[in-house]
């Protein structure tokens, strides 16, 4: 029997060999696939196993933090400021995250290769891995002012404040907002139902209107047209007289472009600064026709329009629309911020900031500093010029024209005693019968700009055709933000 016993032993050996080979195949070759499978709930628990870094504003206000708890989830995410910063921090839900929580995820959860050294040290000292802390450029006072003022309007909208010299984003608000804590609970059913409720909300609170969507900029776009006009001929300035007919007839068409409410603009021949103050349509329409699509487009591009940006969240690219060959009249509409021109509020803030900063547009950024758990710097936000939009001389001319708009024009509601504010209002027609959007862009103080603001109030203009509405609804919000930054 021994010979067959030996064969049986070989069979047993073969069975164990097969098992071992298969286990090797599973745990060494196929392991990654199984580990990363979406149905593998371990990844889900892993999300809560590491102490995620904090998100702070200006080094002091805590926007998001992870606190240790008892139970199956070790660290839970907590948003002390709640709705106020929802579109800045984003949320950290069981299967996804958004905004800064998403863009800086690998640093926040400590898995980034930038933290390799820290992790190696922790491995030897036996300390648990902790995520890096992210400090944002947000000025908490400005953020609060923007939020409160925009909320008071009772409308949907967005407000962005930028430091013109650096590109630091000082405030970033989008309304309606949501409570990130509700989506960030680890229990999937609660988190998902909270998310689905927000997703189905017709007001779309999950959209960050400041960077994630674009809208017709209306008259605020006239500053871009003005910039192109100034750049076209250096002898021009605010006193240069331009044609300002009551109705501008457009080529190849029977339609005419009116001023708001069909009103006249001065005596038909006005200084450019007057046209901007009153926000007449016809002079800018004519300038657009005279300069042509290419020059307006080039000027917009220089202000950053169409540039893919990440602040570090991705920003929707603004556009003035494609050139319409069969309709040369289109450029007249584009020049007053209508037709296919659509801008994000951030883009409009960049335009104001670029003019304020002597024509130099700085790249906007939100992350001030990233430090590892021990406080050593991992990364720091650096001011970086995006483009030279205008010559300093032309920028100075445009600046003084915009100061005039606040001092004498449509944006009087933005005046701050003792501070020279430059700005431009806008009212953008959207659809027939729907209230237009109210806009306001500004910078202050004019001599040494500390802040540039863009305010957008969705369908915020009270009565259709009321030009003063940009000034009536949006400008006071801009004023509140500016005051908060300037400590007024």
């Amino acid at each position, binding site marked *: *029997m*021994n*010979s*067959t*016993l*030996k*064969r*049986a*032993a070989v*069979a*047993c*050996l073969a*069975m*164990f060999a*097969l*098992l*071992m080979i*298969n*286990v*090797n195949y*599973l*745990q*060494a070759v*196929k*392991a*990654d*696939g*199984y*580990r990363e*499978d979406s*149905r*593998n*709930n*371990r990844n889900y*628990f892993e999300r809560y196993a590491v102490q995620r870094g904090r998100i702070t504003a200006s080094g002091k206000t805590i926007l998001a933090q992870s606190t240790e708890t008892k*139970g*199956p989830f070790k660290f839970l995410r907590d948003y002390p400021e709640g709705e106020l910063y929802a579109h800045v921090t984003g949320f950290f839900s069981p299967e996804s995250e958004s905004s800064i929580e998403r863009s800086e995820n690998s640093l926040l959860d400590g898995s980034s290769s930038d933290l390799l050294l820290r992790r190696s040290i922790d491995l030897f000292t036996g300390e648990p891995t902790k995520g890096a802390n992210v400090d944002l450029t947000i000025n908490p006072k400005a953020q609060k002012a923007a939020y409160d003022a925009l909320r008071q309007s009772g409308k949907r909208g967005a407000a962005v404040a930028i430091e013109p010299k650096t590109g630091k984003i000082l405030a970033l608000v989008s309304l309606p907002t949501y409570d990130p804590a509700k989506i960030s609970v680890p229990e999937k059913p609660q988190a998902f139902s909270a998310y689905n409720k927000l997703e189905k909300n017709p007001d779309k609170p999950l959209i960050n209107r400041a960077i994630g969507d674009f809208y017709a900029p209306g008259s605020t776009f006239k500053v871009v047209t003005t910039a192109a006009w100034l750049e076209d001929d250096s002898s021009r300035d605010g006193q240069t007289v331009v044609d300002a007919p009551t109705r501008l007839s457009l080529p190849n068409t029977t339609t005419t472009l009116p001023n708001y409410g069909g009103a006249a603009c001065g005596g038909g021949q006005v200084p450019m600064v007057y046209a901007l103050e009153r926000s007449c349509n016809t002079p800018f329409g004519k300038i657009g026709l005279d300069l042509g699509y290419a020059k307006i487009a080039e000027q917009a591009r220089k202000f950053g329009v169409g540039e893919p940006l990440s602040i570090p969240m991705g920003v929707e690219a603004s556009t003035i629309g494609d050139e319409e060959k069969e309709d040369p009249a289109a450029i007249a509409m584009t020049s007053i911020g209508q037709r296919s021109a659509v801008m994000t509020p951030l883009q409009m803030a960049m335009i104001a900031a670029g003019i304020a900063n002597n024509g130099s547009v700085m790249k906007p950024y939100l992350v001030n500093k990233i430090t590892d758990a021990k406080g050593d710097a991992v990364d720091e936000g650096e001011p970086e010029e995006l483009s030279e939009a205008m010559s300093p001389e032309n920028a100075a001319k445009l600046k003084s024209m915009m100061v005039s708009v606040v001092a004498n024009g449509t944006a009087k509601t933005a005046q701050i005693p003792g501070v020279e504010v430059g700005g431009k209002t806008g009212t953008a027609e959207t659809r027939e019968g729907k209230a237009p959007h109210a806009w306001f862009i500004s910078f202050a103080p004019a001599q040494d700009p500390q802040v540039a603001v863009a305010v957008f109030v969705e369908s915020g203009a009270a009565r259709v055709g009321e030009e003063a509405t940009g000034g009536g609804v949006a400008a006071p919000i801009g004023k509140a933000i500016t005051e908060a930054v300037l400590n007024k």
Partner: protein
Amino acid sequence: MPAKRRVAQLLMLALAVVVVMGAYANVGLAMDEKIPSGMLTYGLSLGGLMLAAYLVLAKFAPWADPLILPLVTLVNGLGLVMIYRLSESDSPLPSAKLASPNTQLLWTLIGIVLFSATLIFLRDQRALQRLTYTAGAAGLFLLVSPLIPGLGQEINGARIWIGIPGVGQIQPAEFAKLALVIFFAGYLVAKRDVLALAGRRLLFIDLPRARDLGPVLITWGVSLGVLVMQKDLGSSLLLFGTFIAMLYIATQRISWVIIGILLFVGGAVLAGLVFDHVQQRFEVFLNPGDPELFVKIGGSEQLMQGLFAMGSGGILGTGLGQGHPELIPLAFSDFIFAATGEEIGLTGLMALLMVYALIVERGLRTSIAARDPFTKLLAGGLSFLLAWQVFIIVGGVTNLIPLTGLVTPFMSQGGSALLANWILIALLVRMSDAARRPPPQAIQDEGLTQVFQR
């Protein structure tokens, strides 16, 4: 002449207990950042139990193989640690809630009592040969007992349990397989000449006579009966495979193996055609990752959760107490191998499989060294049974073969299997003692030295 190697055995045993205690401490430190409070109780219980088992073995089977007991201790201990680890999880999942390390420790105690009792009362394994047909009848009765109304109970869709008032449920099939291997051994020894020699040659293989096919067909029928009536794929496969292996060992006829495989394939195809659950197991085996099968009731989720666990463990594992084995359904029983794989990784599983392989190897060595055909066949059969069982369940959870439910010997939570397996080990130890015991010394006579050959 083999040495007794008793000191070596004691040291190995101590090492096994120390490894298990280390694993306990590891679980406690990882999960609660302290040595578990019950560690001393566990350590002393396990250590004391093993010392008692060792003393019984030293007294009643002094020539026994020195490795079998320490190896089994290690696997049994590791199973206890995994069940303890699962019970410590905060998770509300059934794999955490149903794991009960104290009960398992109690069963281990009873298992060792049975191990000792077997060694004390069964002084010569050849006594079992006289009980051939009794064992056969007992085995058959145990196997069908869950079908007896009032006695049998159906749990999780398999009717493999009987309820004993005051004790709980036992799985009689676990004991039946021991009785049946004893029956196979006794029967085959008696009939092996006729099974081996009678027949005629066709092409390359010797075909047996038709009437000698009887026992094979009966076993096949019984196995199929188990499958049909109790929906227990695993036991059915285990029993039939072991019988074919023993038949081959006894008769040296490859034709039996071929007939066996043909019958098995026929049975499997038949079962697949008739029973949805058999067919579904096969579909899951072919395509476990399929999203549709994953969400189906009785689909691939269970298997996939085991694979996810093993994949997440990777080469070195997460470390005991640091993974999430509670996410695997039945992590404390059928899937304890996958749960272990997550926490001790490929490295640990290779060691674990090696320990199983060594136990089997010691058993087969005993079989080869044994002096009478019955002992040879019984030892070979029991060893093969163990190897075959590990192959079926581990192969199942690692998707090497279609998954059929079976316990992982000595590791899975459950009293019946643990008790039966400790008796199996006692039988192997008893036989190894007999095999290694020096034969009666021949009267020394210069020039006429007797030569013994095994």
